[in-house]
């Protein structure tokens, strides 16, 4: 038992690595602050293309969405970070992470918005247009707000996934929370820094997971 405590909950080590992990946490939050809004917006664009009047736009979005939903994000990230340099395109870890997440997120958020947009009856659009709103105004003021409300739990659930996915950035040596913790682990030969990182993620995400469970129950009821 002592061994277990010492290996996973070593307080003195945790205290020692705390500042390093806080730094990592900031980087994680910084990545989130960029990839979540960008991904959510790109996803909306993808969804609008997928449900648009233009046949070409609809046909093009299907392979895009399927491709980036099929390829695991880590594969995409490693492909961008260590594959593209062979073609003469070298991106910094931060750039690689941003690009990989943009492609992955836009596909996932896109599918969610699409479901939302499709749940809005054509009558809404027709009524809005007949009051004199343009197609763009109809989308912005009438269709999208209702669509988003309908799929809010799914959007939130996907956002939790995105925050968790930022831990993949550690694989390409971006000094975010998990990377810092794993570095501390390899220096101290002790898993406590990783447990501390897990605690950070829990503090960050547990309230959101709880909120999500409530939202899901309310929508289902």
């Amino acid at each position, binding site marked *: 038992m002592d061994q277990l405590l010492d290996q996973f909950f070593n307080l003195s080590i945790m205290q020692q690595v705390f500042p390093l992990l806080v730094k990592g946490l900031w980087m994680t939050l910084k990545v989130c602050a960029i990839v979540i809004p960008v991904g959510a917006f790109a996803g909306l664009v993808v969804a609008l293309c997928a449900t648009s009047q233009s046949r070409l736009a609809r046909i093009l979005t299907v392979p895009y969405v399927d491709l980036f939903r*099929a390829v695991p994000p*880590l*594969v*995409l990230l490693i492909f961008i970070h260590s*594959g593209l340099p*062979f073609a003469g395109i070298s991106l910094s870890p931060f750039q690689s992470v941003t690009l990989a997440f943009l492609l992955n997120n836009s596909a996932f958020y896109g599918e969610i918005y699409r479901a939302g947009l499709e749940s809005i009856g054509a009558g809404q659009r027709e009524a809005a247009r007949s009051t004199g709103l343009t197609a763009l105004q109809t989308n912005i003021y009438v269709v999208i707000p209702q669509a988003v409300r309908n799929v809010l739990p799914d959007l939130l659930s996907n956002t939790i*996934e995105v925050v968790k996915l930022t831990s993949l950035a550690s694989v390409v040596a971006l000094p975010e929370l998990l990377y810092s913790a794993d570095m501390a682990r390899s220096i101290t030969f002790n898993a406590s820094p990783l447990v501390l990182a897990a605690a950070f993620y829990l503090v960050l995400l*547990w309230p959101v997971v709880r909120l999500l469970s409530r939202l899901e*129950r309310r929508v*289902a009821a």
Partner: protein
Amino acid sequence: MDQALPPTRWTIFLDTFFKASVIDQYLPSILKGIVVTLEVAALVVICGILLGLTLALVRAYRIRAVNILIVILVDMLRALPPLVIILVVYFGLPNVGIALSNFAVLWLILTLVLAAFAEEIFWAGITATPKGQWEAARSTGLGFTQTLLFVVMPQALRITIPPLTNRTIAITKNTALGTVIGVPEILNQATTATSFAGNATPLMMGAVAYMVIFIPVVTFGRWLETRFAWRRA
């Protein structure tokens, strides 16, 4: 006619990502990786869904202490990035005398994560079944367990299929995380081969392998969703 053409952007691109000699050389190791990925995936899907179903059924008995435990476990597994749990277990357990192979760690963690999400989905299905169904079944003389298994679950399963499929696909894709702890699955084979070959072709092969495996699955998931669509008003 057949004079050597100067390298164009196109040939450079082909040489970087689709070099025939590299494909020949590393195809066997990528195929080996595919087998490992499919093995882990199959084990995770079967064990994860069964465990999740069991947890949801246990939760239906509403034993307070047990349910609190289940909810805490499920919440934690939903909130933590799987890669974090994998690293904690892989690097921590050997130091307390429990040595698990990297394959076992990957299987165990992904199974637990899938079980947590599956439990939530099954539980949502159970709670979505109208109360009248319970009351009617009980009044015909069925016991609690009989009602749960023969009346409620069959109805609950129907609405759980689309979300469960999508979640299962998402977690199966996490088998790629195994590369971080050295499980010789597709991504691991591809990155190793890329560094040996000094050429990005194996990475492209790995990406193509994932597409070949997952595009049909993703398309199937999409079809299921429309097939079992139940519109929320």
